[in-house]
């Protein structure tokens, strides 16, 4: 890892915290990543994260915090603070978050001949978030 930025930030009540931005040094990490890519489970998780990252990056950086606020799970009254959004990769569909169930429901509104893949569900859901963000941020 490489430290890109490192600074003290005022944490209130007379305290301070150290804020750092880190990034992976690809040249160093690449051998491990290449190895992980040959392992089916790791490759599948990586593929999922890759899709999520690309589609999330379509939302303007200044709006990305808003996107979290309009997410089906986070905007639900029954969602606790500090909850992570689980796209049903680790919990089964019965216990899936609102976000997952919303993404799955998109299938029922798809054109007749189209069966959405999991990647397509994810991309569509995130593009819906992008649209809601635009509506909120104007």
């Amino acid at each position, binding site marked *: 890892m490489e430290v*890109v930025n490192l600074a003290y930030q005022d944490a209130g009540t007379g305290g301070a915290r150290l804020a750092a931005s880190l*990034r*992976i*040094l*690809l*040249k160093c990490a690449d051998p491990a990543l290449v190895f992980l*890519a*040959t*392992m*089916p489970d790791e*490759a599948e998780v990586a*593929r999922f994260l*890759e*899709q999520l990252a*690309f589609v999330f*990056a379509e939302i303007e950086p200044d709006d990305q915090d808003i996107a979290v606020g*309009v*997410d*089906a*799970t*986070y*905007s*639900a009254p*029954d*969602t606790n603070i500090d909850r992570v959004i689980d796209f049903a990769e680790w919990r089964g569909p019965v216990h899936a*978050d*609102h*976000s997952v*169930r*919303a993404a799955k*429901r*998109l299938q029922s*509104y*798809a*054109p007749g*001949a*189209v*069966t*959405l*893949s999991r*990647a*397509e569900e*994810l*991309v*569509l859901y995130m*593009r*819906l978030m992008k*649209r*809601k963000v635009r509506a909120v941020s104007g």
Partner: protein
Amino acid sequence: MQSPVERYGGLTAEELRAFMATHPAFDDAGVTITARFGRAVARLLLRRLVASESFNFSIFLLSQSLAEDITGRNVAPARLLSNGNDPIGDAVWLVQAEIRNAYAVEDDLPDDAGAAFQRISDVGLGTHPAIVVDARSPDWAARLYPSGLDSAEFWIAIDLTAYPISKDHLRDTISRFWEQGLRTPELSRLSAQPVWENAADGIPNPRPEQRIQSRLRDTLFGAYPRRSIRAEIRTEEGRADIFIVGDITAHSGAPAQMTDWLLELKALCDRTNTGGHIGNQGARDAVTKGIVQARAYRSTQNGVQAALCCFEMRATEEDDAQCFAHVNDEATTNAIHLWRWVLYRSADDARMARYHLGRP
């Protein structure tokens, strides 16, 4: 009874329905970084084609760590490159997959392609996935090198046109996919989805067709950036393997989609993944079923062309004519192309077939 708002957290069913009613784009879902890069560069090339830019070569290199790659290099940022308003010719570009950030690395690219490739290798960028654009003819040619220019023998042609994909072009693309990723067990193992469990004994991994389909879809995404590549589409007849779909304008002027090609994939095995024997009748049945499926799926999707793509994993001396003899008439009647590629069980087998037996 719960309301839709409660069922979907902060979203209503009506919001979901309204969103889907606008036909949102999702044709890049599931695309690998390299194929995404190919599609983004292709979009840029089309904009520059419209602008009638004139040049010899241009090379785009995919960087997954731009900050690292530009450190210590003499680079010039080109943050608006993807808009298509800046010249792209006779330069080397380091870009992210979607070209949101771009840097010009070399602005005096040699006129000779070999020297240009060597320059990339010399500056330590030869393992970055690359797209080389040859603009010396009016209809530019572009190639995607997924393993970088140091592995210049591995490439696929990028089809920048919106014309129907020809049989020869598609077969050549799939042949390259096979040549570069399936022909030998060693090539297959480079993927996260190898097709062989134990190639020497002829034992496939579970669901070899799905593994091939997933990898082939990635290749087709890169090769045909103006098409949607859809897999496992449900039809009235079952699930079709791969559809290649193009955007068209309907008579009404509304955007529409038309299926260019239907590909039905079959992995012909003589062993199960648990080691059981299948026998040749199993492969014959699979080929017959493939023809029936291709015919049925195409009729429901109005596909223009169809091909049965067989990936031969058996230890067999059969040639294509023998393998397809029992379906040849039906395939001809229904204009279904019959294509076959052999997955050799060792590099030695592959060499023997190529140089001594005259097989593909």
